[in-house]
């Protein structure tokens, strides 16, 4: 049986970057049969065509409800599927929900074989959200710098300050008001818009 060598894994994820990170991790860990579905239309028939042993889906994906249909006894179902996250392993459930991933296992694959796959998913999903956070922070830092530069310009012009003096003024105001420099700079921009 193919599943004994390397279970067939399907990743259902609309984020191509996260799917790629996960796929890479799985391949490095020796899982050679990994497919990715990014298109949610006719999701079930795509899954049936791939006939996987394990399905991984991100929790931000509304199509998770579509997968629930596979548990129903129906003519369309070729193989019964059970959800892995049963009550026997609550730490693992918590970790996977926190990370934002859910796993489904097709009947026939031993549960213990899923554990390393799920652990890998959790760490890769967490790595991805860390990356995303860093990216967001970098973006907002960049935004802040632009706003601060413009606010400095306004202060320099209105109060005849040097660039350094303008920055010191922003910073001391921010400290006094217990706000971020970016917020003070933004209010200067807003005020100057209003007073135009």
């Amino acid at each position, binding site marked *: 049986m193919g599943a004994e060598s390397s279970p067939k894994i399907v990743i259902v994820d609309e984020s191509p970057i996260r799917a790629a990170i996960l796929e890479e991790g799985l391949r490095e860990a020796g899982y050679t049969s990994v497919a990715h579905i990014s298109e949610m239309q006719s999701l079930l028939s795509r899954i049936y065509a791939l006939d996987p042993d394990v399905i991984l889906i991100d*929790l931000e994906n509304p199509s998770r409800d579509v997968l*629930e249909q596979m548990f129903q006894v129906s003519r369309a179902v070729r193989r019964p599927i059970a959800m892995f996250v*049963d009550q026997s392993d609550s730490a693992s459930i918590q970790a996977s*929900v926190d990370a934002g991933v859910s796993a489904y296992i097709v009947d026939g694959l031993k549960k213990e074989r899923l554990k390393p796959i799920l652990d890998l998913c959790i760490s890769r999903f967490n790595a991805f959200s860390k990356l995303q956070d860093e990216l967001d922070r970098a973006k907002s830092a960049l935004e802040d710098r632009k706003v601060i530069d413009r606010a400095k310009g306004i202060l320099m012009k209105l109060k005849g300050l040097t660039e350094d003096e303008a920055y010191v003024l922003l910073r001391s105001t921010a400290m006094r008001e217990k706000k971020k420099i970016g917020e003070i700079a933004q209010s200067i921009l807003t005020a100057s818009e209003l007073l135009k």
Partner: protein
Amino acid sequence: MTTPVHIGFIPLVDAAALIVAVDKGFAAAEGLDVTLVREVSWSNVRDKLNIGMFDAAHLLAPVAIASSLGIGHVKMPIAAPFNLGLNGNAITVSPALHAAILAEIDGDPFDPMATALALSRVVATRRKNNAEPLTFGMTFPFSTHNYQLRFWMAAGGVDPDEDVRLVVLPPPYMVDSIAGGQIDAFCVGAPWNSIAVDRGVGHILHFVSDILLRAAEKVLAIRQSWAEKNPLVVAAMVRAASRAAEFIEQPHNRSEVARILAQPERIGVDAEVIQRTLDGRLKILPDGTMRESSRYLLVGREDAARPDRAQAAWLYAQMVRWGQASFSPEALETAKGVFRADLYDAALGLTAKPANGSDAVGAFAGPAFNPDDIAGHLAAFRIGRQKS
């Protein structure tokens, strides 16, 4: 001192009592510091409620029952002390399917028996022509939408498992899917039916209140163990939701309610579309044809918020009819026990009422529903998937 409470919800109009309870300050007045968490799937709501990330949730009534019975998923006893809404769904069909049904109909197009019989003729013609079976979208295997569609079409002789395809689709995808021709019809809650009509890709064939006069749709779901440990918090939640439901049902508050629900972090669609649902006055055809029903969505009025064990029994009977559950008297008792009128009455200082003697469901087909005679209910219908 305030109690922090996390409540998950799906952006649908029948989450109104929860959203208004929070955004109008009724929850805060009860000493609750509620964080509403918007979710994208019923599976997420169910799982996060199960593992304790949510203390309570806006949940499909049949999911609360299925969880308590341990069918379809892990077993987690749920207490539902408050009905967030009765009815509120509609069946929308593509313009092509609507035309086909109207061409076959013998009778009033708002009469579900007439449309169901017409549908069976459409299905027979398609089979004769070797056309693909019709595909109907619904929101979840354990959903009122699923049971309402099945009850309706089976009454006309259409076997929902043999003659058509029933597929789960997330509500936000329904409109695109009917527009793209992947599905021919769907049963979903507000605002999605109206959006399909506005886009000209769907015609509202039925309000589900045509099929059943009273169907428990969404409940405030709480883990039973948590409810037992936190009775005061549960009572406070019920009171806050009850005040919100009363507020929503005052016609002069409707536009304010629609504005609250329309906010991007709540439901995030046009206030005008939401108000149609609250008013029960819906545009059913793209040409502007309107239809009005006082029973479209009941939030609190006509005692809608009070959990009714007979409603739970009806939902369980549908699970048995369609092969999702096998019948046992114990399971029936468990299902009924999910709907906690006792907690509702206690929270609001009401005295317990005797069970309503009349038909609590009011289905358009079959005999009056007797919650103590599930076998009799099932025997009345020819089509079904009962496990032996």
